[in-house]
């Protein structure tokens, strides 16, 4: 009795005192969380856009202290942020172009090719060196040629690209921006992107990410965003947030086979079977907003678990929500195949026009000069708003800033702020940043003339006749909202509403990209060195050779030969006969 009690007490003391090595973090609360989300929005032209967002939030400070235990946050990116003093990182790889005019404002757009912009911590002394190292390391992680980012395509914007996360002050010398418009996106970029997800592509929403369907689309954009955010509403501590987003637009004609009805199986050739056990939230949102305040046009099946209303990009929208973690969803069948059907055929006159959209093209003829024209449309009936235009033009298109004209409604429109940094040959590109006021219901045309340079023959790429790309220009604007947005708790609202921090509800921030341009430079004929060598050598051999012969050739008489054996024999016989020899 007493002995047993004493032994029990001793055992309890031992267990409480020493830490059990196998349960090292069982007592701690979880400091990281994963939320995943899929947004399906049917577009006015009959296409459908699917946006995946995977957000890992980690309540730790990567800069201070040696963090060695990575759970949901990928170690490759965590080590990168800590070692190079990165405050914010945004990398996007895109194939295709988002047609704002026909599809509406994008939730998050990226330019064609690869785009990388990074804010460094103020403690970093040599920002250029850190930038070069960062692009090399990222090229290894994502199998992209980001190592081609160097001073010839990097710029330091002064007004655009303010930090999206917590910021203590914005010294723009800590910002770097580069875009590689020629970069191709394919499965080898998707594979490492999927491997960064905590569940990989084996469970949860990521099972839908199959390359054969994702690249057979009009627009495919995958991005990685790392930034510090407020840990809670009081915002006294910060957490690190990693967002991986993937936007894909399936074409009505090629993937949809000409029918406007979509389903998960039709889009991805797969359905959802289970949830990622590491995710704290896993939802599918379908945009069922009625157009023109009429009754709903779109029908979804199976019936959603709930309906969510939110003000997104200044408009009131309704979403059907499928919560994959709710037990009732997978009750009837093991797989979830969300289907969208149109109740009645859509009128083509119902296509809404977005408030802000832009277009860019190259004008002119010939291989010497040209003109870059940008058209920016403000279709709001009575509100004007400012827009910042950022253009990065490679050094071999020499811009003439004195030919810059900005014309709105027939009159000249002087920008409130211009920052122009001219290019240095082979060292720095052109940077043009302007803050322009767009009057209500207007079209603004910005033109600038350029001259094409002749490159050295070793600087041409192996396929120079394809042309040279000029990266997309960036338009950042605060567009007035139709419906005022209320301040809601970031943690409760869907992920697609919380990427851009909003200051007041009367306007929302949007970043648009224009088309990239393809420009032909005067290209030499690369077979000419061979032709010239052949021709020169022939001419030299013929002319010089002839002169040399004429000058140095002497003529001398040659003794006739004594003749062959037969002739000698004949001569001997003739000698005997007394006849003169041959």
């Amino acid at each position, binding site marked *: 009795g007493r002995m047993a009690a004493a032994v029990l007490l001793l055992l309890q003391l031992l267990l409480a005192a020493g830490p059990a090595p196998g349960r090292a973090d069982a007592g701690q609360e979880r400091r990281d969380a994963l939320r995943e989300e899929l947004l399906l929005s049917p577009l006015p032209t009959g296409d459908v856009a699917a946006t995946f967002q995977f957000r890992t939030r980690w309540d730790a400070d990567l800069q201070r202290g040696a963090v060695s235990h990575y759970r949901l946050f990928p170690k490759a990116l965590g080590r990168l942020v800590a070692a190079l003093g990165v405050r914010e990182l945004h990398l996007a790889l895109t194939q295709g172009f988002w047609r704002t005019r026909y599809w509406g404002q994008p939730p998050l757009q990226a330019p064609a090719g690869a785009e990388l912009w990074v804010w460094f911590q103020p403690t970093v002394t040599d920002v250029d060196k850190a930038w070069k190292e960062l692009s090399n390391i990222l090229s290894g992680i994502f199998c992209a040629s980001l190592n081609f980012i160097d001073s010839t395509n990097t710029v330091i914007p002064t*007004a655009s690209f303010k930090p999206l996360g917590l910021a203590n002050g914005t010294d723009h010398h800590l910002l770097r921006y580069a875009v590689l418009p020629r970069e191709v996106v394919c499965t080898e970029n998707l594979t490492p992107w999927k491997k960064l997800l905590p569940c990989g592509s084996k469970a949860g929403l990521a099972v839908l990410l199959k390359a054969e369907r994702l690249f057979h689309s009009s627009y495919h954009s995958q991005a990685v965003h790392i930034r510090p955010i407020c840990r809670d509403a009081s915002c006294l501590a910060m957490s690190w947030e990693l967002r991986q987003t993937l936007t894909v637009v399936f074409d009505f004609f090629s993937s949809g086979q000409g029918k406007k009805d979509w389903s998960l199986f039709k889009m991805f050739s797969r359905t959802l079977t289970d949830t990622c056990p590491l995710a704290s939230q896993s939802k599918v949102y379908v945009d069922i907003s009625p157009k023109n305040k009429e009754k709903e046009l779109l029908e979804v099946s199976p019936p959603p678990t709930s309906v969510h209303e939110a003000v997104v990009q200044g408009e009131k929208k309704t979403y059907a929500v499928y919560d994959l973690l709710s037990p009732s969803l997978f009750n009837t069948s093991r797989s979830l195949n969300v289907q969208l059907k149109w109740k009645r055929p859509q009128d083509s006159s119902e296509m809404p026009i977005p408030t802000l959209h832009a277009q860019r093209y190259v004008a002119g003829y010939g291989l010497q000069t040209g003109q870059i024209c940008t058209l920016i449309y403000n279709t709001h009936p009575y509100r004007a708003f400012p827009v910042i235009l950022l253009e990065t033009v490679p050094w071999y298109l020499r811009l003439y800033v004195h030919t810059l004209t900005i014309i709105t409604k027939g009159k000249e429109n002087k920008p409130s702020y211009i920052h122009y940094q001219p290019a240095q040959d082979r060292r720095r590109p052109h940077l043009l940043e302007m803050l322009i006021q767009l009057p209500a219901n207007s079209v603004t045309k910005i033109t600038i003339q350029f001259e094409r340079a002749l490159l050295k023959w070793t600087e041409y790429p192996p396929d120079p006749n394809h042309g040279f790309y000029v990266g997309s220009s960036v338009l*950042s604007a*605060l567009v007035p909202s139709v419906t005022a947005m209320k301040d809601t708790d970031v943690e409760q609202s869907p992920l697609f509403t919380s990427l851009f921090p909003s200051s007041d509800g009367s306007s929302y921030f949007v970043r648009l990209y224009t088309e990239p341009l393809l420009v032909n430079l005067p290209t030499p004929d690369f077979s000419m060195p061979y032709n010239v060598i052949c021709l020169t050598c022939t001419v030299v051999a013929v002319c010089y050779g002839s002169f040399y012969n004429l000058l140095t050739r002497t003529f001398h008489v040659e003794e006739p030969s004594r003749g062959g054996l037969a002739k000698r024999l004949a001569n001997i016989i003739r000698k005997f006969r007394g006849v003169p020899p041959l």
Partner: protein
Amino acid sequence: DQAEQFLRSGHTNNWAVLVCTSRFWFNYRHVANTLSVYRSVKRLGIPDSHIVLMLADDMACNPRNPKPATVFSHKNMELNVYGDDVEVDYRSYEVTVENFLRVLTGRIPPSTPRSKRLLSDDRSNILIYMTGHGGNGFLKFQDSEEITNVELADAFEQMWQKRRYNELLFIIDTCQGASMYERFYSPNIMALASSQVGEDSLSHQPDLGIGVHLMDRYTFYVLEFLEEIHPASQTNMNDLFQVCPKSLCVSTPGHRTDLFQRDPQNVLITDFFGSVRKVEITTEALSLDREVAAVESKFPDEELATEPLKYAEQLPVAQIIHQKPKQKDWHPPGGFILGLWALIIMVFFKTYGIKHMKHVF
């Protein structure tokens, strides 16, 4: 006998360097060649971290590909060699002669990531596969530069002197491919080529849906041969030499084994194409310290900020308009300006003489 075999091979790790040197859509077959060797090598056990894959152009997501994200090797789209899990280390414009030689010799800029390096040592067996357009003594890279057989032989000699390989298998599938291995002079190299000097390597079959030839003949039959190999198979190199006789290949494949020390009869295919690890069983025991785990579980304490942190304003119009341009750092005048001023001053004093200085001051 198997134990003897196992002990005699002498390598502890396997590497593969697979290079496709051709650009443009009509050279689809070269990318398919390289990807089929990549697929076999991965299937037989070499991990992505030990494969350096160089593709000079992107065929899978090419706008002319009717089936995006696929590269087929058999007509009627039977076998997708691109797959879902592929890591290309050098793509597009990065595939140059300089980068290829740097990868082989290890003379790479320090900021290159690990996946782009060939980190082999003196116990590595390396497989090098090259395909593209070639001629007598050279191989074309992306239609703009060439690598000659002398350069390649010298690169292998550098690798030997730095002890970067134990044994090397070099396979080349181009026209007149045998000319590329004529000049090798380093030991432990075995070479195979798809055609002799003066012969062209031909392509296999076109697919009418895709519109181009899908594979070259030699690599097509090598792929079929490798599909039957599994990590434990005992097939040796002599069988690989017999792949693709003249009746199937139209060209005469060649091989060179005089530099190789072992008899090809005793060399397994998996010595180069697979990754067979040697396991040494030890009887020593290690005791793990129980206290280590306790230290790891503590998180560094954080101090909270005194006032709330805030997000930056995305478009602060007033702040932007009133931004003062940064004062340019004053640099002392450079050489040209100094020289110009020195010239002007010299001419002035030569003309007017020193005695006029007092009028200046």
